[in-house]
């Protein structure tokens, strides 16, 4: 009976102490004290341990040595002294009691006594068998306390400098550093050993507990509790040994053993597949990544790290060689892996509750997550991985709440990877969060909670209904009070500017763009210090106003609005005379208003400020053509092509001007590849064939993008493969996923289809990298955009559509050139592909009709001609259905009516065109010819006279062909 009792009691006590369950241990004390229990020697030690550890748990995380602890720990100290006096012959009691006593003394600032106790424990002999997990942990903690005491005692010589010479003090300090580091390393080694044994213990405990049903919940509870921490001292020491070793390495001191980086790797590989030590894992992974980023320590790049090599061998042994695992091969791969692990761990730790008592803990956990996000942003932006970054920030939206920083970062990363509609919504949310944060400074807590409630309600409603207001609700932003927070004001102004620019450039949604720009101007007016941004905000307002004016159907309103636009932009020019962008847009809108003298002046000044503006050069060349100076325009374009040899718009413009000079055949031959500029070129595809792995990765990337797009689009169309060549199939699958999403994101307005609102003359510079791969064998080796990331294979979803849309008008002008010269063979295939890939493009439909009309002019069969003409008419009408203001389609349709003999319908269409766009001499010319055929010579004479007068101010191509320019486009 006594034997069984003693053995069972001992096992129970070992388990309880390993779990740090001090309450349970106090319940077992009477059994320990009873005679013949086998543990009488440990009674005082156990009692002291309960007092000490309970008090330390009560203190919290960190032991800060202080005299205040002496009163509360004196009883434990006395008990330990009694234990040592009475039972010094017991080896276990000797070690453990001495270490516990050292722990007490360290907490009470008795460093010398603590060191003495550690010496008395003889734990450094190396003969010690670790009987229990508790003993192993205590010895590790003993080494930790020894190191901390040595470090703390360094301060003693410093306080009495007069008693020591300088060199002696320096030498002594260096020696102590080495001793502390050595002891810390011993502690870290034992801690790693302890963690491994602890993990085994947890696993075996859970297995053993399975037969006994009643014990299982306790076992799970123990496992969960162990995950929380492995002990504050051990965490601190493992963190510290890596830091100190890294500093030693950087400081070039003589060091024995492994370097700091190896210590980091050793600890992280040990903790990597464990439940325990999560907090330490999180800390160390971030610190290690930060250390690698700062590049203050040289990296051994030749051979694999020892720790990683050992870990890899163990994983092969454990999992089998057929299962793959990731081993970083370069510094940046290691950084990314560490930061991704840290991101997962830190976001899990974020406290979602908003109660007041958890406020400080929540703030701290949120700061940890932000640190992880900031480092990931720094690293992933270096390699242009904005897609992955946007995903990471999107997962952070669960706990963003009113944190405008996280909202803003998510929106910015969404812009960088091309998700503009979502970025706008997130920006709005960020501005709302800024408003709430600003109000909370001046209002009471109850008001804050009510605002938070409104915010959450609004957010839930928004997500549920999945709808977006056509224009921002003015009430939502009327409560902005930012004058007392300049930093916040700067952030909000930046967000307003970004929203306005995206609306103008990507969606052609000018009404809300005007509103957002106006809000930005108001905020700049309030903040005197931000005057340097005011001119830009006003410029955005004027640009949005001007493009809205360009789409005005009524000529009288259009004229008035264009006049106001010019006035607004001239104000911007006067405010900031050095802004090339203001001068460029002043020139642009002067040109649209046919004030060519002012346009030329502004354009020249803009190019003087910034000579690298192909759009401004294009505009200036068109102004020259309006003056009739074709030679000057051609010289200008050719000189610019020396600087921008792959600029698409300049190349097409040169073709048009050279055609006027009669040099047609050789020009068209050399530039036929420009027709299908949105496709990838055969040299790139040959590269694909050489490497199968890239194909797989491209498919994975495309799938990820498709999945992400579906998430964002709310269930858009599934991309489907079409029959044809494999490369063509990959091309076809991409835009089909995007094209139907556009109507779903924007409900069709009654007046205009939304697609027609998308400006087709958006940025040229997006394609400068892509155009580079079109021309020249050397350039095609590069692939896509010329940057540090030259991987052209990872083109995002909708890339072809984006390329096409930005250059659709220029492409249309080029294709018309081919049609006029009768080169149908070059065009047929390209136009069919374009219609298949971009069914919502009015330019493609228009060109289809043009091609059909041109073809039927050469046919003799009247029936066939009539049928083809009907098809052409259908194509034109389809284009006009998509874009009612597409003048080229109207003009072609009018010609078709004339050929059919329907003069009345043709005249009606031409009158409508002249009414809406009276500044173009072509329409007047066409109307005059039509009236002449009908015999109305007087009115025909008037129209032809107007055409002759306007010919002196009409450019070779419409001014609207010139693309939109924003600073972000240039790269």
């Amino acid at each position, binding site marked *: 009976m006594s034997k069984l009792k003693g053995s069972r009691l001992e096992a129970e006590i070992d388990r309880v102490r390993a779990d740090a369950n001090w309450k349970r241990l106090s319940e077992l004390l009477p059994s320990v004290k009873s005679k013949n229990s086998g543990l009488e020697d440990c009674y005082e030690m156990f009692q002291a341990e309960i007092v000490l550890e309970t008090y330390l748990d009560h203190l919290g995380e960190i032991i800060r040595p202080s005299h205040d602890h002496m009163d509360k720990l004196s009883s434990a100290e006395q008990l330990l002294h009694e234990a040592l006096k009475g039972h010094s012959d017991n080896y276990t009691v000797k070690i453990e009691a001495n270490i516990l006593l050292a722990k007490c003394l360290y907490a009470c600032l008795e460093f010398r006594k603590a060191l003495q106790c550690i010496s008395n424990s003889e734990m450094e002999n190396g003969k010690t068998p670790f009987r229990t997990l508790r003993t192993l942990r205590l010895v590790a903690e003993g080494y930790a306390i020894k190191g901390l005491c040595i470090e703390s005692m360094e301060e003693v010589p410093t306080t009495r400098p007069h008693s020591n010479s300088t060199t002696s003090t320096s030498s002594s300090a260096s020696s102590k550093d080495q001793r502390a580091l050595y002891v810390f390393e011993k502690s870290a080694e034992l801690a790693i050993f302890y963690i491994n044994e602890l993990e085994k213990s947890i696993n075996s405990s859970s297995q053993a507990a399975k037969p006994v049903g009643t014990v299982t919940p306790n076992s799970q509870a123990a496992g969960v509790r162990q995950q929380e921490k492995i002990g504050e001292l051990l965490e601190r020491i493992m963190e510290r040994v890596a830091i100190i070793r890294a500093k030693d390495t950087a400081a070039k001191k003589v060091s024995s053993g492994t370097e700091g980086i190896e210590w980091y790797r050793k600890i992280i590989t040990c903790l990597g597949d464990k439940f325990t030590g999560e907090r330490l894992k999180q800390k160390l992974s971030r610190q290690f990544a930060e250390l690698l980023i700062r590049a203050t320590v040289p990296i051994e790049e030749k051979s694999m790290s020892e720790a990683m090599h050992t870990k890899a061998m163990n994983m092969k042994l454990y999992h089998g060689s057929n299962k793959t695992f990731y081993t970083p091969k370069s510094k940046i791969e290691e950084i990314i892996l560490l930061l991704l692990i840290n991101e997962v761990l830190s976001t899990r730790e974020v406290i979602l509750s908003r109660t007041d008592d958890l406020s400080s803990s929540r703030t701290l956990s949120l700061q940890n997550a932000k640190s992880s996000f900031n*480092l990931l942003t720094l690293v992933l932006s270096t390699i242009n991985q904005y897609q992955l970054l946007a995903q990471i920030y999107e997962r952070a939206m669960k706990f963003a709440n009113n944190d405008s920083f996280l909202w803003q970062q998510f929106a910015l990363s969404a812009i960088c990877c091309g998700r503009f509609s979502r970025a706008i919504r997130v920006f709005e949310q960020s501005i709302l969060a800024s408003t709430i944060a600003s109000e909370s400074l001046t209002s009471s807590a109850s008001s804050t909670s009510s605002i938070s409630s409104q915010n959450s309600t609004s957010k839930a409603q928004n997500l549920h209904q999945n709808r977006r207001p056509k224009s921002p609700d003015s009430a939502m932003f009327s409560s902005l009070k930012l004058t007392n927070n300049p930093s916040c004001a700067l952030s909000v102004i930046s967000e307003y500017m970004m929203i306005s620019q995206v609306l103008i450039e990507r969606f052609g949604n000018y009404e809300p763009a005007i509103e957002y720009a106006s809000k930005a101007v108001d905020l700049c007016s309030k903040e005197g210090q931000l005057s340097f941004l005011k001119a830009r905000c006003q410029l955005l307002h004027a640009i949005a106003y001007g493009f809205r004016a360009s789409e005005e159907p009524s000529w009288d309103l259009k004229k008035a609005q264009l006049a106001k636009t010019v006035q607004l932009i001239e104000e911007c020019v006067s405010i900031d005379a050095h802004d090339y962008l203001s001068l460029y847009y002043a020139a642009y809108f002067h040109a649209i208003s046919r004030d060519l003298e002012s346009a030329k002046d502004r354009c020249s000044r803009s190019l003087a400020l910034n000579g690298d503006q192909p759009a401004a050069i294009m505009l200036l060349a068109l102004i020259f053509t309006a003056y009739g100076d074709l030679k000057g325009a051609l010289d200008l374009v050719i000189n610019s092509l020396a600087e921008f040899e792959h600029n698409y718009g300049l190349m097409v413009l040169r073709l048009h001007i050279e055609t006027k000079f009669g040099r047609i055949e050789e020009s068209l031959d050399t530039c036929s590849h420009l027709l299908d500029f949105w496709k990838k070129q055969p040299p790139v595809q040959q590269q694909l064939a050489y490497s199968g792995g890239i194909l797989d990765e491209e498919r994975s990337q495309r799938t990820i993008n498709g999945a992400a797009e579906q998430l964002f689009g709310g269930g858009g169309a599934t991309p489907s493969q079409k029959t044809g060549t494999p490369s063509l199939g990959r091309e076809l699958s991409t835009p089909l996923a995007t094209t139907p999403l556009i109507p779903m994101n924007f409900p069709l307005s009654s007046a205009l289809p939304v697609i027609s609102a998308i400006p087709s003359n958006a940025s040229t510079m997006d394609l400068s990298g892509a155009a580079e791969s079109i021309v020249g064998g050397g350039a095609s080796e590069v692939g896509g955009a010329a940057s540090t990331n030259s991987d052209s294979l990872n083109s995002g979803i909708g890339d072809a559509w984006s390329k096409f849309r930005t250059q659709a008008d220029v492409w249309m002008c080029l294709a018309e050139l081919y049609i006029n010269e009768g080169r149908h063979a070059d065009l047929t295939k390209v136009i069919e592909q374009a219609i298949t890939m971009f069914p919502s493009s009015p330019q493609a439909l228009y060109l289809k009709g043009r091609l059909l009309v041109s073809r039927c002019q050469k046919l003799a069969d009247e029936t066939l001609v009539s049928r083809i003409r009907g098809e052409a008419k259908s194509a034109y009408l389809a284009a006009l259905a998509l874009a009612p203001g597409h003048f080229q389609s109207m003009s072609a349709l009018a010609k078709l009516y004339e050929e059919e003999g329907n003069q009345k319908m043709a005249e009606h269409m031409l009158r409508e065109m002249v009414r809406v766009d009276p500044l173009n001499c072509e329409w007047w010319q066409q109307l005059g010819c039509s009236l002449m055929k009908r015999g109305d010579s007087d009115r025909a004479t008037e129209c032809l006279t107007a055409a002759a007068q306007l010919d002196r101010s009409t450019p070779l191509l419409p001014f609207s062909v010139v693309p939109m320019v924003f600073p972000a486009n240039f790269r």
Partner: protein
Amino acid sequence: MNIDQLSDFLLEVSKSGAAVPNKLPDKREENHLKKKFLNKVAPNSLFAANYIASNYTDVDLIQSIIGQILSIYYKEGVLRLYALQFVPGFVSLYLLALSKKQHKSISLFETFLIAIYNEEIVDGSESNEKKMEDIRIPSIRHHSVYHDPAKIQVQTDVPVMRNASITPVLNTLRFGPFPSVSKMNGENKFMIINRILFSVNESLFEVASEVAARYVCLGTLSVCRSGFTFPETAFRSRVLDTESHEIIEDFSKKPRQQVSGEFLNHLLRGCYLALFNGAADLALQAIDAIHLRAQYEMLPDTLLVVNSLRNSLLDNMWSKEKRGELMWTRPQHKDQTKRRDMVTNASLKMKRMPEDIPVLERQKESTSSRFNELMEEGIDHLHDLKKKVEKVKGGLHQKMHRRRKSVEPEENELQTIKEEKPTESSFSNDSDTSSPATVIHKPIVLNGDDVERRLRDLVVVEHDYDKDLEKKKNGHETPTTSPKEKGAFTMAGLRHMDSGGSTYRSIDS
């Protein structure tokens, strides 16, 4: 003469750098030797960079130095790192020349940058193949040596790949091969600059180059602030408690320089690395300038990164330990920091000099000596003149910084500074601080050069005659000499450089 001194210095760098071994089995030892070499030549390198920045419009003057730097680059090993130190400053000067349309300087820097770019994209001189690097983005849902996905409970909202492949790699990026370039134009110039800055960030901060850290920050300030009047923000003082001990010139009158988002991102990364490599003060000002410029230009990718950096530096409270870590440098850097403080004190003395000079005399001198140039070049020359004066002060900082290494040059330095003062009070101070010495033959020759130069200047300005008289009087009372021949040579060289600088300065004017 000044340019000859720099040329000799670069030759010496070339020789001593060749002695530093390229390949060692111990990577740490190799980096240690490289670091030691770069730290040793850092003061003169800063002087050379300042000289080029002050005289970049005079192509005939500096193209030999830039040619020497380029030839140093073509040698392997530490000399390549040495030449890369100058790249951030040259990129800044190139953009400045572009904005001012100074075509000679543009051509010079373009040649330099193209040569370095074409060399950087090649992988070693053996195979002559181009550099390529694959970066594999890990998938957090698969095992790695650092984590077990089952144990850290990867969240379920991580996007699931429908083609769930076995590979633990989420994505593979390929950097390079980059195309060779024969000329820079508007289309590819930022691509070239970005690629070179990428190399600078990768290579130089592994050896913690002081010159690179400093000029990345100065170049960033020049690029971002030129032509703008940005408001004074509290960013720097909130991160760093100490006062700014460096005065940055005013950029608001300069023409604006062109930037792109990716270019600013590379500069930002360089500033971030400089923050932890001994240039914290300049780095914080540069990061703030990038922030304001990115706001103005509406660059989303730059705003994304600079917001992250600012959040890390502002919102996460820096404990004392972290702040110490921020300012933590090697023992060598500590010494250099102390010397920098001494330079600061000297610069305070330098600032008192203009106050002592009579305003009328200065205006008269300036007007009479610069009259023709003003007529010819107009207002741009005034900017150049102002910049030259500021750069000369900077150069003097470096001179004093270098001379303070020993006691004897310090005395000589004080005399040299005070000899330039035209007022009588400087004369009395000079007599108080000078020490007796005898004249050696070489100094006599140098004095002859000084006399000759002053005689040449006498034709232009009457004021120099008074200075010459003061010097003669001073020379009679307190002749100087050096007890050692080496010391004599050193003093002679220093004085020679000073007079050489004056000579070239007069030639410029």
